[in-house]
């Protein structure tokens, strides 16, 4: 076997030297560290195969919440399963399938995946560094290994001059060249970047997954509606809905206050691209930090928390008095678009009355009075043909609030319920009325009086904290970068042997000039076909720099 074939630590089948090296490495007496590294369990843990199994497990775990309702996004549905399928519900509860993202097993998959990847990458990185260091190490003196490409020629130049010429040719062609041994042999290499790219790819995968884990466990995402003139605290209690509750509890929230001073929306009839803007102030630790306008494309960004303008709506202030004239309800009611006849609908509950009262409200920002004939076509909607209005535009021209009164049991004592839904299963429809903004209000049959006191906008924000975002971005870009060498780079080596011509030394006795023998050998580990041309190129360049002797026929033993 070749002595020139220095240990290279590469993984291709041709490289018998690596296998030999691995075998000799195994013969090294075990130090405690090495014994630990060779524990069979650890060997399994640091295999890429395990990482891939875990990645698959993670994907499956991530699919579960799309099939099973989750408590953070759909608590009512989860509660319903609890009522209808108690057995399966208790099984699901034990397996934590209703809150997958906060379950210990989900976290365990993540942690195992990151640990296995790390255990996989560290030895590979070490092996790579060793390989880079050894790939051009000075070989021991001997004959050349058997190589796919070999060319040999004699030249009149002296051995040192010839060696220098070959070196400069290879340097110009960006070969990494090792030092020559006493016999004039050395190794040059190109394309180490391929393995570097592969390593980069896997490290960036690690980075990317770490970022995703950071976002999943330390980050959160939810929505909150703020009425104009009101404030919001960045803490779980003030959120209205969640898309990611985070897994490490509530302490990761920042607790600052956002005050919504004003909300503006362009008139969709006149503006070409209607914009909507929230004027907000950020208050932290009792001090106002800054004021900003939040547009759909300009989020608020403070202490790693981003607030995006998501949507908006109308919040009429409704005042309800009992027959004695005492105020029993005075609050802003969030209404949503999509009600009958272009109205905005909402719900308010007055549980302190006896019997309890609930109202469905229908807001018409720009009401149009209908004739009974026109109203007849709406006879089947929620309002019925007794209400002679429809909405004309979203602009608050002469806002009118129509309300439907229900009396009975709101069902509040029978468990958590959606604040935006009126459960009328134990209630009867009592009366219908309407009130104009700022007007005197409407007296209902049972003595309650309802007043439409004020109309404000509410603004809905999507609030996110994404601590892994930067890691994910860096990871994703490096991932692509690491792929490039795998596509375009190939590893190849050259063996260079420049020495005084042994035949010429013998002939020296006859007085002829000293001659030098130059041998170039080459091998490519990937895309071998393309290497033939490159090898020919290198040889041509070297021969131009170190011209072959003309008198003797040169030996060209280029093997296929």
């Amino acid at each position, binding site marked *: 076997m070749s002595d020139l074939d220095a240990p290279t630590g590469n993984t291709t089948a041709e490289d018998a030297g690596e296998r030999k090296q691995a075998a000799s490495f195994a013969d090294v007496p075990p130090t405690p560290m090495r014994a630990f590294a060779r524990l069979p369990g650890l060997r399994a843990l640091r295999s890429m195969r395990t990482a891939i199994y875990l990645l698959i497990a993670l994907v499956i775990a991530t699919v579960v919440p799309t099939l099973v309702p989750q408590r953070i996004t759909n608590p009512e549905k989860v509660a319903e399963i609890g009522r209808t399928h108690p057995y399966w519900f208790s099984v699901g509860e034990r397996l934590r399938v209703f809150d997958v993202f906060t379950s210990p097993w989900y976290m365990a998959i993540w942690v195992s995946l990151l640990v296995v990847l790390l255990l996989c990458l560290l030895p590979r990185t070490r092996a790579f560094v060793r390989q880079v260091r050894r790939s051009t190490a000075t070989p021991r003196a001997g004959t050349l290994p058997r190589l796919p490409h070999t060319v040999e020629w004699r030249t009149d130049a002296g051995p040192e001059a010839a060696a220098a010429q070959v070196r400069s040719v290879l340097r110009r062609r960006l070969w990494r060249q090792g030092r020559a041994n006493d016999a004039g042999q050395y190794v040059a290499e190109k394309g180490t970047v391929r393995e570097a790219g592969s390593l980069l790819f896997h490290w960036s995968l690690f980075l990317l997954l770490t970022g995703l884990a950071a976002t999943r466990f330390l980050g959160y995402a939810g929505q909150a509606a703020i009425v104009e003139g009101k*404030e919001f605290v960045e803490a779980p209690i003030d959120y209205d809905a969640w898309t990611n509750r985070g897994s490490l509890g509530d302490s990761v929230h920042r607790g600052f206050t956002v005050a919504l001073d004003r909300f503006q929306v362009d008139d969709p009839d006149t503006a070409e691209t209607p914009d909507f803007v929230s004027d907000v102030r950020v208050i932290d630790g009792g001090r106002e930090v800054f004021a900003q306008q939040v547009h759909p494309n300009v989020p608020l960004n403070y202490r790693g928390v981003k607030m995006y303008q998501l949507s908006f709506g109308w919040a009429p202030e409704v005042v309800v008095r009992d027959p004695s004239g005492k105020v029993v309800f005075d609050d802003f009611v969030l209404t949503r678009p999509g009600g009958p006849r272009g109205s905005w609908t909402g719900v308010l509950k007055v549980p302190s009355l006896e019997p309890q009262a609930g109202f469905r409200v229908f807001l018409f920002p720009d009401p149009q009075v209908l004739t009974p004939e026109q109203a007849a076509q709406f006879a089947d909607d929620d309002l019925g043909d007794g209400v002679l209005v429809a909405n004309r535009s979203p602009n608050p021209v002469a806002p009118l609030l129509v309300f439907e009164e229900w009396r009975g049991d709101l069902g509040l004592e029978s468990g958590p319920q959606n604040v935006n839904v009126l459960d009328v299963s134990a209630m009867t429809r009592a009366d219908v009325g309407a009130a104009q903004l700022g007007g005197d209000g409407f007296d209902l049959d049972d003595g309650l009086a309802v007043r439409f006191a004020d109309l404000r906008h509410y603004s809905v924000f999507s609030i996110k904290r994404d601590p892994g975002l930067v890691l994910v971005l860096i990871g994703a870009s490096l991932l692509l970068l690491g792929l490039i060498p795998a596509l375009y780079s190939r590893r190849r080596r050259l063996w260079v042997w420049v020495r005084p011509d042994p035949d010429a030394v013998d002939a020296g006795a006859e007085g002829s000039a000293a001659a030098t023998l130059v041998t170039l050998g080459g091998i490519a580990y990937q895309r071998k076909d393309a290497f033939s041309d490159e090898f020919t190129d290198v040889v041509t360049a070297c021969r131009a720099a170190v011209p072959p002797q003309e008198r003797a026929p040169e030996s060209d033993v280029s093997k296929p």
Partner: protein
Amino acid sequence: MTRPTPRSLNVRSAALTLRLVAAAAIMTLSACTAGSGSHACGPQVADQDFALPEFSGSLVDGSSVDLVDYREGTVVLNVWGSWCAPCRVEAPELKKAAEALSPTGVRFLGVDVRDSTTGAAAFDEEFAIPYPSVFDDPSQLAADLGASSPPTTFVVRDGDVRSVIRGQTDADTIKCAVEHVNRA
């Protein structure tokens, strides 16, 4: 030199990996469950230890309040809202607990969140709640206390939050938590 063939090595590694991952999962699981469910007063109760947040604001009736006045003795803080269904269910229990414990010097204070003053006042009147409530708008005090949703009840002793009861509770649990804190 004898080395296991790749095939047998793979089978063995897979089995070992499985066992190791399972072990890791069990360890994580047990670590996560060890913290909860062990309190003498019930699974909803957990010990806490942090200073009562600084807060000054107004009560539901409009008068002003400063938590400095609640730094001494034992105080029960109940985070609630008139719109919150479980808060309505537990309200008579809180009243019962307040009436039973106030002779022993324990003070109660409500923390009304995401509410209107009228709704809160109507609630207090409906259930004849004997103690005042902070009108916490926005929910700054509740957030500083670490309450993620109403109802949540805290037991404070000499300015330190010592115990939390998460979710709907009853008079016995509150009494137990107060005794637990006062004994410690």
